[in-house]
């Protein structure tokens, strides 16, 4: 009988096994990233057209947005401060512009928006409440505005073919997406350029980066919105509805937020043009958005009980400028201006947008001479 050979492991061979396990564990997530990204020969102009026509492309997926816009704004402005300053996790099911659902995922809950024609349901798990509102003429930004397709179409709204050029492809949510860079003509916008990566078959923007400085800025983009999972297909009807459980209190509200309330009831009528920018909001309204593409702003009259706390918060912002008639703060692409001083009995104008402080001051001066309208 031949003697059996027993292989005894040495300390070195044991630790080699550990090193092998570590290598395997590290290689699994890294391996897909090493695969080359495929490109297409589509031109920037064709890609731009495809993005503009993507509003009714059905899709669903998981989105993360990251914002570096640090402005201290309180609860009166809804979730605007949180949405622009940190990381937001979203799930989206989008049939078309009329039927969609966007769930904002929180560690211990959800804040969801369910849109059906002219009606939006806003559901908050921790409040156990769903609020139903008619879509107003004017509203504050909300989570759905940060989805890559919505943000991408908004920022490329008035891009000309000559303002865009192709970027290299990038793998986004597993899709080899050709890129597009839009550099707006030098002007009054705070946006230096916008990079968009697009699903080549549908024109759906998968990743959007908004920069307030050149691409070599070490701080990176001001706002990034990107799909981490995406399926380009029309989701089922039950995915875009809101089948409320009996434990959810459903109520109907007349106004959506402070901008909607001011737009309907404040004693002003905004002109069709303001400081050279065309009004986007239709009708005789006291609050409105103006401008287009990357040069747009929101003008809302506030009562002193809303304006005073906001003014105090703005004063805490780095680089804030205060003066006789206004407080101005800028963070990255966003500039916020609030007119008036504490305890002023009259209305204060909140002007916020992707425009330089000087431009918003022109806007504020035009707003301050608007006459009061008694009967609205």
């Amino acid at each position, binding site marked *: 009988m031949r003697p059996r050979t027993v292989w005894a492991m040495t300390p070195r061979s044991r630790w080699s096994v550990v090193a092998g396990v570590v290598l395997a*564990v590290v290689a699994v997530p890294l391996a897909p990233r090493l695969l080359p990204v495929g490109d297409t020969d589509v031109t920037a102009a064709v890609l731009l057209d495809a993005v503009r026509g993507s509003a009714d492309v059905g899709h669903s997926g998981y989105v993360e947005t990251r914002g570096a816009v640090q402005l201290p704004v309180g609860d009166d402005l809804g979730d605007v401060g949180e949405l622009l300053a940190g990381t937001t996790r979203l799930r989206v099911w989008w049939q078309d512009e009329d039927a969609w659902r966007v769930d904002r995922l929180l560690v211990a809950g959800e804040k969801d928006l369910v849109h059906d024609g002219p009606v939006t349901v806003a559901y908050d798990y921790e409040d156990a409440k769903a609020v139903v509102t008619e879509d107003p003429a004017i509203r504050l930004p909300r989570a759905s505005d940060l989805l890559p397709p919505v943000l991408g179409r908004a920022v490329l709204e008035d891009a000309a073919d000559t303002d865009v050029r192709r970027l290299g492809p990038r793998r986004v949510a597993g899709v080899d997406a050709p890129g597009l860079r839009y550099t707006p003509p030098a002007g009054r916008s705070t946006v230096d350029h916008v990079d968009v990566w697009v699903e080549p078959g549908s024109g759906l923007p998968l990743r959007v980066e908004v920069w307030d400085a050149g691409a070599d800025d070490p701080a990176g983009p001001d706002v990034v919105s990107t799909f981490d999972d995406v399926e380009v297909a029309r989701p089922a009807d039950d995915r875009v509805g809101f089948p409320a459980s009996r434990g959810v209190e459903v109520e109907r509200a007349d106004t959506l937020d402070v901008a909607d309330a001011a737009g309907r009831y404040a004693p002003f009528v905004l002109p069709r043009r303001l400081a050279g920018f065309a009004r986007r909001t239709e009708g005789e309204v006291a609050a409105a958005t103006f401008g287009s593409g990357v040069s747009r702003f929101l003008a809302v009259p506030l009562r002193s009980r809303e304006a005073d706390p906001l003014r105090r918060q703005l004063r805490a912002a780095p680089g804030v400028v205060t003066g006789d008639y206004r407080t101005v703060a800028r963070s990255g692409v966003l500039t916020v201006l609030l007119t008036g001083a504490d305890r002023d009995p009259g209305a204060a104008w909140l002007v916020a947008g992707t425009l330089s402080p000087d431009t918003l001051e022109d806007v504020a001066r035009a707003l301050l001479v608007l006459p009061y309208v008694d009967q609205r």
Partner: protein
Amino acid sequence: MIAVELRKLLRSRRTWATILLVDALPTLVGVLLAVTDLGPRPGEGPAFLSAVLTDGTLFPLAALAIVLPLFLPIAVAITAGEAVAGEAAAGTLRYVLVRPVSRLRFLVAKLASVLVFVVLTVLVVAVTAYVLGVLLLGDQSVTTAGTTSVSGSSLSTPELVGRTFLALGYAILCMLGVATIALFLSTCVASPLGAALGTMAVFVGSALLLTLDASDAVRDYLPTRYWLAFVDLFRDPILWRDLQAGVLLQVAYVAVFFAAAWANFATKDVAD
């Protein structure tokens, strides 16, 4: 070998004292909620705690969210840190190793014993919280109509029970990750306290790094990154993304630290 370790675990008064201490906090929270009828404000407090005043059947999940970030990992770190270093500190390790059992089997038996401890603790916490939730908390008229999912839709009782067991299983896996880190450290030091404190330093450091934007590049690899992802089981539809990542991450931690524990322990010159 595993049977011997399990008998030691179950006969130890310290095991049951630790389980009772871990169970005490959610029990106290449940009683206080029932007495005062004051839930945490939205956005504050552990997951599901704001919902238990309406639906007591969610209290096992709230209890899990209460103990998972700190109490449970501390208990697991102490128990697993004791595994090898405890024997060494008591001077019994060399006698244990005299038996014709490989050191690998010895480590497997120790890990299995810690796993049973985790399962027992999680089950005791869940059962206590369920009884407390049904008896003291919630509005029965709402509960009988179905539990509200995090996404606002209704969950049937079988769905709720199934998802609750998945959440408990997920929490157990997360604690197995803690246990293997503690087991590895237990093979490195002679003091069980040192192994337990070292493990706590790992998960407290991980929890701290998760709050920093600057640690963005490494956050997905931190051991506590996906611990609270069990909440995603109660969204509609279930969001599997973080749960899958959490399972893979914990399996990776278990594989790496168990391999390191084996390599270190098998090489170790045992004198104690």
